[in-house]
């Protein structure tokens, strides 16, 4: 369908107004909200992720696309609720206790939201109790980031607290940030590690499929 292609292209090109207009146009034509979301917007963001990972585009372009996605989603959200379209999953995200670097975390949150996930943004300097509370409120994935070697150790503290609260089996935990490596993620008992925002989306999809 031409409209879905145009919506997808608008997301890829980061044209927020066009993307929002295409959603309105599609809804007026009777296209289901779920179809617009999956076949237009999420498909567009998936392509953006592929282009980034192939080195064809850079982070700012990925963000511009994510912003277009958000603009379109604002128009679409009430209709998704009406149709009873469920999100792809609920993700609670935050930086570890003591870490105040929010840019990377915000970028991951935006990419996940653009890919159909419900985001609970816990902000920065998040103590383990807040992650636990988010899990009790239905978060299926906890995403933690840290930019410093001194604060990344609090990831393990949070994972231990989640385990001690008896919630470890209910949640998937993914980690990322400049000093984090796959081996560190394995060592602290996380379910996965992503090196950038695009691979974080892929990772969340993978861990939720397990």
């Amino acid at each position, binding site marked *: 369908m031409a409209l879905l292609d145009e919506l997808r292209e608008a997301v890829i090109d980061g044209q927020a107004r066009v993307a929002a207009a295409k959603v309105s146009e599609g809804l007026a034509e009777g296209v289901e909200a779920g179809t617009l979301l999956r076949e237009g917007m999420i498909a567009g963001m998936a392509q953006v992720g592929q282009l980034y990972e192939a080195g064809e585009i*850079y982070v700012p372009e990925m963000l511009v696309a994510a912003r277009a996605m958000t603009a379109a989603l604002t128009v679409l959200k009430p209709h998704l609720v009406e149709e009873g379209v469920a999100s792809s999953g609920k993700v609670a995200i935050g930086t570890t206790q003591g870490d105040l670097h929010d840019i990377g975390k915000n970028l991951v949150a935006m990419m996940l939201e653009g890919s159909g996930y419900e985001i609970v943004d816990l902000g920065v300097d998040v103590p383990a109790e807040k992650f636990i509370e988010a899990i009790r409120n239905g978060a299926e994935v906890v995403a933690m980031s840290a930019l410093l*070697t001194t604060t990344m150790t609090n990831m393990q503290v949070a994972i231990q607290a989640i385990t001690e609260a008896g919630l470890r089996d209910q949640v998937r935990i993914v980690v990322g940030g400049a000093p984090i490596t796959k081996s560190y993620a394995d060592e602290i008992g996380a379910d996965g590690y992503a090196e950038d925002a695009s691979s974080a989306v892929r990772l969340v999809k993978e861990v939720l499929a397990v």
Partner: protein
Amino acid sequence: MCPDVDMVLRTLGAHPELVRRRRSSALGVAEQAIAAGRSLLAPVVVTERFQVREFRHERLRVGHGHLSGPLVAEHLHAARCVVLAICSIGPALEEAASQCFAEDPALALGLDAFGSAAVDLLGQAMCQMVDERANAEGERTTVPLSPGLVGWPVASGQRQIFALLDAGPAGVRLTDGYMMLPKKSTSMAIGVGANVEHAGDSCDYCSMAATCRYREEHISHHG
């Protein structure tokens, strides 16, 4: 002391030539960030030169404190004195970046990169001043060492530097996790002496050297 477009692009992990060839919107983001961020820069440096009193067991006694660790021992053991510095561009730019993320995330990222490039430039200017003075006195300098490099953990390195140097005038403070606030700040130690060696580049001693995209761009830029 204002980073140019290419510096901002490299900090974003983008190759300036490719960006221009592809007519990437990253170029516009970098230009916009410079225009919006320039007036928010408030560069400040506090620095002091300390005579080395003793070097023993990987520990360098300077002033009323010490610097220690394998990296310190490797580079500063032959130093006659050590220059400590804390450089910052102030809090305004990072506050602006955080505030505009919801409205314009690409600009927020551009501002963040602009700030990182600016504090990097400030650190380089500081090193150049130390080099020039050392050269004028017939001495040499070591590579600048910052806490967090391999062999000088963030926690112990920051504790040592902040114990010796009053960061108050720079408006920089350490959090409980040894993170500097404002975030766009850097701390360093440079050894000075007739027999010190300037071995490599600070990036060579960074734990993220293998994966850092900024370093990739920096190396390709400098050949």
